[in-house]
């Protein structure tokens, strides 16, 4: 159930009664196994070492330099990190990312859970049809979703402002509003991803034994009480996984911002990854972008560790 199960089994102890030649034979077998394992692991490890492990160290080194991608780079100590945490525009990007995560996490989970609860009822016709349609946005790229929503919400051409105008709501240009642009790019991500959370919740809901509901009904529990007393506790394991997963995902927001707002208006939708992209690849401040990358890396690692801890604790509780 949890994220990771330990791979390790303690090596078999060689008993004292085993004669020396036999133990040499065992040692030879062990060397053979290690050799074969190395051969199987080599291609994947080569890729991971070259393109994840080593770059992680280069990013750390770059973050202490004024690298621009051209010419010499010199060591400037912690200057980039100082800049990350003092430059108002960068702090704003970090703050926007946190705001994005705070909106995205709870909403995508609530909508996904809502859809899962509806779809979990056995007496609903066309269940698999509904499931297919509701999950559909998940296979559509965020880029395409952004283009479609930019069109739908365009104040001069879009269907949504037009229809809302007909019922008396003047929406205006939300992508020109420093208040509404960030919620709008968040909403596109919720639209695209809630089907994923729905499917995970559906699996979680199926894991709750039926008799618990039957017992609750016998005790006279209504729908809300059943939800509070049976469904929510039954989903606790799923919930911890999903919350951390959603927050980590939120900290990587980029695509819809690049396509819909380019970080605007007035930096209102700039996020950490958007700044890594523009600083590193448009303004060629690669040292600074690397420092910001490390901030992202540390945040993600911390979230990942929290998830591992919760998972391990839960496993202990279950034992």
């Amino acid at each position, binding site marked *: 159930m949890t994220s990771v199960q330990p791979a390790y089994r303690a090596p078999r102890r060689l008993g004292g009664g085993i004669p020396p030649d036999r133990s040499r034979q065992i040692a030879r077998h062990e060397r053979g196994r290690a050799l074969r394992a190395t051969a199987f692991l080599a291609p994947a490890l080569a890729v991971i070492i070259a393109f994840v492990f080593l770059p992680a160290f280069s990013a750390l080194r770059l973050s202490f330099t004024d690298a621009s991608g051209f010419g010499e780079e010199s060591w400037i100590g912690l200057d980039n990190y100082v800049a990350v945490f003092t430059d108002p525009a960068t702090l704003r990007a970090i703050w926007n990312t946190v705001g994005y995560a705070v909106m995205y996490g709870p909403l995508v989970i609530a909508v996904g859970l809502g859809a899962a609860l509806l779809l979990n009822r056995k007496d609903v016709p066309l269940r698999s049809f509904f499931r297919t349609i509701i999950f559909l946005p998940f296979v559509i790229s*965020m880029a395409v979703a952004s283009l479609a929503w930019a069109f739908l919400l365009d104040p001069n051409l879009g269907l949504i402002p037009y229809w809302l105008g007909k019922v008396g709501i003047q929406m205006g240009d939300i992508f020109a509003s420093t208040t509404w642009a960030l919620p709008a790019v968040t909403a596109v991500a919720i639209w695209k991803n809630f089907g994923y959370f729905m499917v995970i919740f559906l699996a979680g809901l199926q894991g709750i034994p039926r008799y618990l509901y039957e017992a609750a009904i016998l005790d006279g529990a209504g729908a809300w009480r059943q939800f509070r007393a049976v469904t929510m506790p039954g989903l606790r394991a799923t919930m911890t996984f999903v919350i951390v997963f959603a927050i980590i995902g939120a900290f990587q927001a*980029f695509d819809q911002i690049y396509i819909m707002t380019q970080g605007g208006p007035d930096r209102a939708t700039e996020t950490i990854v958007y700044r890594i992209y523009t600083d590193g690849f448009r303004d060629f401040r690669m040292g600074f972008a690397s420092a910001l990358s490390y901030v992202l890396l540390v945040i993600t690692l911390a979230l990942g560790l929290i998830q591992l801890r919760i998972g391990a604790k839960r496993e202990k509780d279950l034992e």
Partner: protein
Amino acid sequence: MNQTTTASLAPARPPARRRGSASTARLLTQSGVVAGLLVFAALTSFPVVVVVLSAFSPESEVLSWPPNFIPSRFTLENFDGLTARIPVFAQSWNSFVFAAAVTGLSLVFNSLAAYALARIDFKGRYVIFTVLIAIMMVPFQALLVPLYELISDIGWVNTYAGLVIPRAADVAGIFLLRQFFITLPRDLDSAARIDGASELRVFWSIILPNAKPALLTMALFHFVNNWNDLLWPLIMTSDSSVRPLTAGLALLTGSATGVAPYGVMMAGSLVAIVPLVVLYLLVQRRFIEGVAMTGMKG
């Protein structure tokens, strides 16, 4: 391990009928649930329907107020506009090569590594496993700058190799396959080993055939994720000869007149989503089960 998943996807059982007011109440909740699901389905399909309708709509109608939901006539002019602006066939091919090559290579590399971690009892396995867990949490967005420098040092910017090779293996993929390989019974391979089968033979003719569902799921994920990816191709390609479609589409948003060419954008979007939507509809069951599996095992 996956019972829950499969159970969740079992077809709905016919509703149990009861008499009298109970059945009226039941009918009411049932219609409420169906209404809720209809709202969700409308929300998810509406933008997709708009993409399809606008792609075939005359550009003058797309760019007029009040907007038309259903175009007055269907035309292919937006697709002409699309091919005039970006090399859409070449870029679709690039998307396919990129996604298919990553899928193929990473299935081979990941399953080999997963096999070693799941089925070979060797010293150092715990160390490798722990290091991999730590690496799995590193977000690739944090490595963009050094990765770009590395790829440009090798001379792979604007090449398929630059797009594909850094993604030829990934820790999350290795873990998911490993979790699946562990569930296969040990007897499967010990019998073959006693008969003198080599490790490669056990892997190829015993483990892989038994892991087909997991492999298919991983293949789908890799293909869809890479076909849809924006940031990585945006950085690694500037030349249309290798640039995939998603990154190509992003360039459509700007226009000289200041009005976004939505008709063309919707035509491009349609080209980008049709292959995946078809693939999804063909194997949606496997797809959704796969998502449930990653969620449970994460």
